[in-house]
């Protein structure tokens, strides 16, 4: 543009000198540069939140008076059932499996760990044969693996069998079961 505006030889020569000066090193200036981006990866899961919705209770039980040992199976799958052998099941005991509500990363698989056995809070009777049921997967007793749904939730129910020796008295029997749930 300058050349067009000032089309005389002297001016053009001056412009040339300016261009040469601009090309030569002067004060600090960037003469060339390059850049590159790097893409890294990380996988982040939502923390697994476990809420105890209910603790295990076999409800009110009356071992029969014939002096024989008995047992009660508390089912994990809904609806809650008590299957008794040598024991009378009484109403009003709010029987329930242990219920845990899980929340975490959608679709994530988790592993459930329960002990081989425990004892009842009342009388210290043997509790074993734990069964596991999840809302998303149904009966998972054999695999002990569950999976959070697309919303990142699931409900775990843990049932068991309580065993009574002969001469056990009527009571409401509850059990504190340590349940461990970890992402697979």
């Amino acid at each position, binding site marked *: 543009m300058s050349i067009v505006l000032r089309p005389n030889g002297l001016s053009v020569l001056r412009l040339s000198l300016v261009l040469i000066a601009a090309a030569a090193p002067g004060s600090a200036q960037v*003469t060339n540069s*390059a850049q590159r981006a790097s893409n890294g*990866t990380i996988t982040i899961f939502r923390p697994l939140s476990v809420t105890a919705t209910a603790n295990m209770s076999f409800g009110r039980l009356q071992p029969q008076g014939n002096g024989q040992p008995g047992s009660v199976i508390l089912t994990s799958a809904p609806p809650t059932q008590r299957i008794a052998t040598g024991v009378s099941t009484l109403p009003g005991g709010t029987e329930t499996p242990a219920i845990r509500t899980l929340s975490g990363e959608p679709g994530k698989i988790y592993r459930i760990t329960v002990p081989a056995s425990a004892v009842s809070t009342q009388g210290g009777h043997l509790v074993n044969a734990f069964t596991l049921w999840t809302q998303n997967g149904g009966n998972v007793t054999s695999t002990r693996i569950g999976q959070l749904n697309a919303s990142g939730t699931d409900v775990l129910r843990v049932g068991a069998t309580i065993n009574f020796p002969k001469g056990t008295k009527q009571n409401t029997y509850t059990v504190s079961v340590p349940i461990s749930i970890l992402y697979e």
Partner: protein
Amino acid sequence: MIRRIASLLSLTAFLAVSSASAQNVTITPSTISVPVLGVFVGGTTISSYTVDSTSGSITRVGGNAFPSSKAGSINTITVTCTSCNGTVGRRTINMSVTAGAASGRFSITNFTRSNETISPSGTVSGASSGSPLNFAVEFPSGAGTKTISFRLGMSFQLSTTGGTGARTFNYTVVAARVTP
């Protein structure tokens, strides 16, 4: 006549400038490792981790998120300057490492550098930690290509909200040659 000579001089100058520009793209971050940080289970509080620049090991410095399979990552960056070739004057490259945008719950909060290797010789000055991380490499005059390699560490943060799952993140390395 004078006008023609002046025009020729002008054209020559223009071509000279154009030629210099064409040779400018000669600094290349030739190697950038890809950080693979592993799998983390987010916490209920904001958690902070560092990736050691030398060893690549990942250490938690705050919060309660925990790694499920912590990978670790040694990130090596090499910058080669072929236009630093010359026998007159020093050759300086300004380096800048800048974090990209946060990716879900992940964000880079700081960079560190270490293990600088300069070929054939030179000095490094400026910050060894920061975000962005800015420092300079000065090569003495001399013939031949100049190279600097360094290891890049970082600090990152896992927030309690935002996207989860497999995330990608990025940072950018800019190398700019400056004339004194």
